């Protein structure tokens, strides 16, 4: 990613379905060869945004550029973009091999070329053994790989993946995440990946776009977003977070800070600086860590992670403190205070 060419550019996209605004002014540049993840809760417009890029949906206003070219008048079958659908959408009447050949056959690629390319893709996706099976005779993970193979054989500039691992169990999910990431690196194709699983987003992506209600909350590298969430929504959607507002002691400037549980320190005696009294309501052991739930005098709840060798008990009265370097001031929207 030394060369930062823009592959896909979304400019001020807006889209409504029956007066309901689904995409509310999104602008986004996707770099060539990057693994970009669209992360957001169900119904926030992830699929709709992908459908603007592959051409099945037209924006009400704004434009979609691929390699600098406006795509308004380019139909889906002429775009240099392929999609792995949320439901895979394999052709049930065709074998795995025929599914993978499909696009090349439609584009009238010469037969020897087809065989060569298809074999290469089947090998890369570990599907050679299943080449002559129908999709209905495959496991979820295998079907998923066929969907990817079928798209990769077209050598698209951009691959769109709509929650491709949503239907798989946890173990297979983890394994496929790695495989996908490796495949993406090897091919150098730009991936735009949709998920509502924050952990998956953090593992797999070069950059994450956090979406909420049709607009972008924050764009950045996973680590950066995790440590420096820009809003209460991002802080609580990506991992767990404590929020302390200005009316608690020592934070009298009226701002709200977000603090990850692992940075919340508990003390038996009142420490210097930040010190918020609280009572422990629950202790859960998580292997190396214990998770401690607390409640402040004003009723607000907090969560801390601590190593298991420190002894905490339900009912203990403690002081919460933290290193101000670890907390993140967030912009608070009036309607989001919970």
């Amino acid at each position, binding site marked *: 990613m030394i060369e930062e060419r823009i592959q896909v550019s979304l400019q001020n996209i807006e889209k409504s379905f029956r007066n309901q605004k689904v995409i509310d002014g999104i602008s986004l540049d996707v770099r060539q060869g990057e693994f970009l993840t669209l992360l957001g809760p169900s119904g926030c417009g992830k699929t709709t945004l992908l459908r603007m890029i*592959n051409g*099945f949906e037209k924006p009400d206003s704004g434009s979609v550029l691929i390699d600098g070219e406006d795509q308004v008048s380019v*139909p*889906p*079958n*002429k775009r240099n*973009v*392929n*999609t792995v*659908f*949320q*439901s895979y*959408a*394999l*052709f*049930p*009447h065709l074998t795995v091999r025929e599914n993978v050949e*499909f*696009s090349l*056959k*439609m*584009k009238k690629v010469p037969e020897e070329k087809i065989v060569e390319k298809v074999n290469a893709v089947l090998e890369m996706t570990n599907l050679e053994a299943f080449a002559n099976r129908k999709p209905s005779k495959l496991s979820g993970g295998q079907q998923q790989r066929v969907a990817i193979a*079928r*798209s990769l054989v*077209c050598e698209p500039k951009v691959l769109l993946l709509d929650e491709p691992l949503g239907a798989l169990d946890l173990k297979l999910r983890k394994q496929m995440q790695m495989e996908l990431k490796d495949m993406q690196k090897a091919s150098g194709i730009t991936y735009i990946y949709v998920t509502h699983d924050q952990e998956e987003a953090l593992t797999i992506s070069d950059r994450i776009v956090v979406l909420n209600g049709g607009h972008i909350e924050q764009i950045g590298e996973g680590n950066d977003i995790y440590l420096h969430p820009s809003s209460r929504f991002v802080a609580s959607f990506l991992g767990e977070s404590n929020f302390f507002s200005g009316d608690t002691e020592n934070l009298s400037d009226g701002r709200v800070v977000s603090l990850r549980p692992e940075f919340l320190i508990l003390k038996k005696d009142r420490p210097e600086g930040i010190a918020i009294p609280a009572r422990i309501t629950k202790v859960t052991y998580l292997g190396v860590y214990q998770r401690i739930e607390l409640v402040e005098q004003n009723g607000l709840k907090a969560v801390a992670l601590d190593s298991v060798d420190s002894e905490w008990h339900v009912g203990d009265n403690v002081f919460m403190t933290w290193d101000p370097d670890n907390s993140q001031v967030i912009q608070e929207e009036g309607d989001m205070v919970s």
Partner: protein
Amino acid sequence: MIKRKHLSTGVLTVIGILILLFMYIPIIVVVLYAFNADSVNYFPMRGASFKWFAKMAADDDLIRSLEHSLVIAGISTGVACVLGVTGGYGMYRFDFPGKSFMNKLVMLPLILPGILTGVALLTFYQAVGIHQGMMAVILGHSTFLIATVLPQVYSRLQQLDGNIIEAAEDLGATSSQTFFHVVLPNIQTAIISSALLSFTLSMDEIPVTYFLNGIFSTLPIQIWGMTRNGITPEVNAISSLIFIISLAAILISNMLSKED
């Protein structure tokens, strides 16, 4: 309690068998009489023979009417399939106002009495200058056969994973490639099954044909004519043949429409 239950299932079974007998005894009798050695229909039969089949085969008028029926059923089934499949696919892909109403409307010819359809078609054809005859009958049959093809095709399309159509386009297929390589193979059993059903419906259609045929005869009309002077064993022979062919067609049609 248990005894009562046994009793009621026993009664139900008997009623079921009686209903089946009531429906099928007449047909069984016809088939049996077709092999009657005698020319008088009564039990017990005194011997079996194929002579009525031979006589049937030698009856030129009957054979000619059979030919007419086959041509009419073949062509109208073909026309109904082409129009029904295109219509069903159009309704599936495009949204337009009154679509669900149209879906119900298209079934109407199946429900309406044949007499009504016959009169309506005759009036209309005369108004636009289509004369009674083969052409008119084929057009008439095609019209009501669309009512069997279109709804079946449409409902099969609705069961399809719609994403495969978008997937095909996403992979670079044109609309016609998508239709022929993805849509058609996935609805072909529905098409074949409705074609078989259409063919049998056309083969034994009387009312609409009667209004439109003019001077020529189709098989059911010919048979109807032959029975005016009492049922001859020859009629039994041809009826048995029709029964067996229809049975086969309907069984195949059922099998295919149950598939996935």
